[in-house]
């Protein structure tokens, strides 16, 4: 066994041949000793990190999601009536204000039903998963947080959509009928879901 063969074999397990090489080769023996020390030290680091855990609110949110999945879904948080005719203009205005554009195959598989605070939930909201269907999307095919536009087509099961993150100034909110939102200071962030045809399908406000 030469040095290279030793290290190839050692990544798996030590056997008698490896042991013999280590006895004969001081360079490999020294290197082996450093590796042992390194691995032992990594275990020390691991032990110190072992107390690091997800905050308790994650468990609470997941338990809520688990219950919601088994029972009746909670109603969407925002139930305002939206002026039908202004939606096309609204989406266009939001699009013009777009901050960034993310492509997404499965907008339904995203943030937890339990409400998240920004900015943690923002960019992650467009994650998709390889494993197919939605954990918590409702029968409309949208995430709970998305408000379907009344005159818009439904998003098809395999339709590619774009999510546009936009900033909506209070004046635009008022014009769109979101009086409650407009009362807040400063612009509000929102995600607009655009279908493969580029038309707005739904909107979701991003809470600060």
């Amino acid at each position, binding site marked *: 066994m030469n*040095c*290279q063969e*030793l*290290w*190839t074999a050692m*990544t*798996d397990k030590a056997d008698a041949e490896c042991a013999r090489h280590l006895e004969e*080769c001081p*360079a*490999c023996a*020294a*290197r082996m000793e*450093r*590796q042992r*020390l*390194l*691995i*032992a*030290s*990594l*275990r*020390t*680091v*691991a032990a*110190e*990190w*072992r107390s*690091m*855990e*997800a*905050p308790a609110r*994650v*468990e609470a*949110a*997941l*338990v809520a*999601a*688990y*219950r919601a*999945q*088994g029972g009746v879904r909670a109603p969407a948080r925002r139930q305002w009536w939206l002026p039908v005719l202004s939606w096309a203009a609204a989406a266009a205005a939001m699009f013009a204000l777009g901050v960034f554009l*993310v492509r997404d195959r499965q907008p339904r598989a995203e*943030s*937890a039903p339990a409400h*998240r605070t920004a*900015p*943690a939930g923002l*960019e*992650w909201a*467009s*994650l*998709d*998963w*390889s*494993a*197919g*269907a*939605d*954990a*918590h999307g409702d029968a409309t095919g949208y995430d709970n947080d998305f408000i379907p536009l009344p005159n818009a087509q439904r998003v098809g099961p395999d339709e590619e959509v774009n999510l546009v993150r936009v900033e909506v100034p209070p004046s635009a909110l008022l014009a769109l009928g979101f009086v409650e939102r407009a009362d807040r200071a400063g612009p509000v962030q929102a995600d607009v879901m655009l279908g493969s045809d580029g038309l707005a399908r739904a909107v979701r406000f991003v809470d600060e």
Partner: protein
Amino acid sequence: MAQHAAETDDELLMRLRSGDEEAFVALYRRRQGAIYRFAMHMSGSPAAAEDVTQDVFLVLMREECGYDPERGTLSGYLFGIARKLVLRGLERGRSDVALEPDNDESLPPELAVEDDPLVDLTRREGIEALRRAVQALPRRYREVVVLCDLEELDYADAALALGCPIGTVRSRLHRARALLLEKLSQERRPRPGMGALKPLRCVI
């Protein structure tokens, strides 16, 4: 929850699928810490780690989550989902940690360290240096160290999580450890002359 201690992950999963909330909580508590730490190491962001942990278990709730006990353990599967979510977040510019190019060519050649005494790993500052060195590893090496050396996954589970053959896990882990030793060696001698670093004959 003590009565769940003896149950396997797969048993808990089966029960949570049938609506047993206690089983869900037990499985979550058993696995969340490792998933959170992994996401934390990979993203460098507590907020991202929190989101990833939450999303991993949301995926698990789905009947068709894609977990196949034939292919590996639930733990390996969960790390795999976490990794996908982290990478997706990184691709979208979510994290402070930039993606490295996914090839080995950019790596410096393995350098000799055997003549350089290591940072004393038995001391506090040695452990701190090691922690920094892990964080400074390129992503593909950091993930294998976190999985195999910190979270102590076996190679099969790590391969499942990383989506690569077991042989690749082995070789990457080997390379990762070499890089760690190199970094620690540099730490001890902050500005080594290049002459002090001679090619190592034993290099694979």
